[in-house]
């Protein structure tokens, strides 16, 4: 094939290379290109450009004749598509040689494979991933602008101490909830990009929660509360869980699901407007994390009859691992009672205590409901919910 390229006064110092690259992309080995142009060093530069590309260049009277060399299009030979771009047609197995390529990109052969542990759709993909990501991306908020930090703090010091105790507990839990998705985000093959994006966003949301809890705790107090051995032991089992489905169940379905009730409780009994708004907004984010895990696990449980047994085993094993630990920090339990009571008046405390008992019941009911939605029967759901960590998360 023979084509021509009129560069007029355009030289390589002003982008002639772009036009030549365009010709190169559509040329085949042996094709010829007649080049004309008047830029001063065009001939010199064409010679160097042609030599580097393995093309033959002959200078004629009115211009140059370029014959594209055998390496033309070599980069595209043997290249393969990294699947199709639409989320509806993700590959069953994302290949290591696709590496970091965009889904649907043409990947040059010969690159070093980049392996990702989670590279099979049956392990990590679910059909509503793109939809959930879009919803999450649209729901982000700004801690500086969206929390009424200047709202008055008129409650007693002891109530503030109780709040700081609970916030300390929440920060520790949210740190675990940040690390788990952040770790899995690096293990999921980028072909399943919506899942990676969801995990990244989930981690970013937990980072925001850590910030607002910390900022609220510092409003009136210079020190935070107690981090217990039992609390950290419980969270450690989440952070160290290597299986994606088991981690999703333990962290999101059960842990963050339980937190939905806790956050609603804290919003209701928040001693100030800033805390109430924090709890409201954090709960909305956490609800999306629960929805992510429910969508993923629900779809996989329907496709894989063995999954529920593996999930049940995860709960049992975590329960066994934590059997010797202390469970919920007593100070947190008492702080919740005081927050619900509003004061140390015995009658108020009794009411606060009753509200916390009520909260525990709501948490259990919520867990059972979600386990039922994943296909466990009533008895299994009740039993497994009862085995959930006493540390809430």
């Amino acid at each position, binding site marked *: 094939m023979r084509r021509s390229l009129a560069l007029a006064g355009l030289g390589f*110092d002003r982008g002639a290379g772009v036009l030549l690259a365009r010709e190169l992309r559509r040329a085949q080995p042996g094709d010829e290109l007649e080049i004309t142009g008047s830029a001063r060093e065009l001939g010199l*530069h064409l010679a*160097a450009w042609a030599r580097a*590309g393995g093309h033959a260049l002959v200078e004629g009277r009115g211009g140059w004749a370029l014959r594209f060399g055998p390496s033309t299009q070599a980069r595209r030979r043997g290249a393969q598509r990294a699947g199709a771009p639409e989320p509806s047609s993700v590959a069953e197995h994302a290949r290591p040689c696709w590496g970091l390529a965009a889904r649907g990109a043409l990947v040059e052969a010969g690159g070093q494979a980049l392996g990702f542990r989670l590279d099979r759709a049956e392990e990590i993909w679910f059909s509503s991933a793109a939809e959930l990501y879009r919803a999450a991306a649209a729901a982000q908020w700004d801690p500086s602008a969206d929390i009424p930090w200047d709202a008055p703090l008129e409650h007693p010091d002891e109530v503030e101490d109780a709040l700081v105790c609970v916030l300390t507990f929440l920060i520790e839990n949210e740190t675990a909830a940040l690390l788990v998705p952040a770790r899995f985000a690096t293990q999921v093959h980028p072909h399943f990009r919506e899942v990676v994006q969801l995990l990244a966003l989930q981690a970013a949301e937990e980072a925001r929660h850590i910030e607002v809890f910390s900022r609220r705790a510092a409003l009136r107090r210079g020190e935070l509360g107690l981090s217990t051995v039992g609390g950290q032991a419980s969270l450690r089992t989440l952070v160290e869980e290597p299986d994606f489905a088991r981690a999703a169940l333990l962290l999101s379905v059960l842990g963050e699901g339980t937190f939905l009730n806790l956050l609603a409780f804290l919003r209701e009994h928040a001693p100030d407007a800033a805390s109430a708004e924090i709890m409201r907004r954090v709960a909305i984010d956490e609800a999306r994390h629960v929805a992510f895990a429910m969508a993923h696990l629900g779809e996989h449980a329907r496709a894989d009859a063995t999954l529920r047994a593996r999930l049940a085993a995860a709960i049992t094993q975590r329960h066994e691992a934590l059997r010797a630990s202390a469970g919920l920090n007593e100070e947190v339990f008492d702080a919740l009672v005081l927050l619900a009571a509003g004061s140390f008046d015995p009658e108020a405390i009794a009411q606060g205590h009753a509200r916390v008992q009520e909260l525990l019941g709501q948490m259990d009911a919520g867990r059972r409901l979600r386990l039922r939605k994943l296909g466990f029967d009533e008895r299994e759901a009740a039993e497994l919910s009862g085995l959930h960590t006493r540390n809430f998360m």
Partner: protein
Amino acid sequence: MPHSIRLGAVAYDPKVVTIWDGFQAFFAAHGLAFDYVLYTNYERQVEQHFAGAFDVAWNSPLAWIETERVARARNTRASALAMRDTDCDLRSVIAVREEGPVRSLAHLAGKVVGVGAQDSPQATLIPLEHLAQHGLLAGRDFEVRRFDVLVGKHGDHVGGERLAAQALVRGEIDAACMIDGNHLAFSTDGSLPRASTRVLDRTGLFDHCNFTVLDGADAAPIARLRELLLGMRYDDAAVRPLMDLEGLKAWLPGRTSGYALLEQACDRSRWLAPFLRSMGAA
């Protein structure tokens, strides 16, 4: 018994290890046991080639001439086994400032000409020979400003040429010498800002590196090496990254017809004399 061969090469850049490791794997996959020895400078490499430290040298054009002359003095023969397609028919240029006073070669009289490393064929020896052939002798008719980067590596490092180009743009020198490929690169990346400089003159064509062997080397593995090199295809995804790193699209049979300009430069400048003396080949 499988063939085995040792290569000598100069480590002008850390990527050299990546390149020869890659070639080692490629040759091993094709039944040729290949190893390599790296040197910090070409003179040591040439010396060690004659000492029998390896079988084949990946030589700069200057190292080729050094080898060829020592071989002749010792009544033996060096030959060029293979070279890159990009080693053939290169050209250097002498660039000046667009608005400067130098409009012709004669105007360089009394001026300062920037060159690359003192042992760079393309950025020093050949351009200065070109000027000498036009009656302009370095040191007599014009001053030479060297941009010595990594002497001993025969200009394999682009640094000296870039420094000369930058000095030209800043007005610190009146002319700068560089190979055409670097002039293209500096024009494209803005090191030579548009319309700030122009090419005053171009040298004749010359060739660059080659794989050099000495008579007496074991013929069978040498032949196998050549066969494998010439058989490498840029289409082959397994070797393309190596060829990209080494800067070629195809290996060609070696030729020695493209070293005349550099030979003349060496003769005029007597650049090789100390080295040849040290090798007993003066």
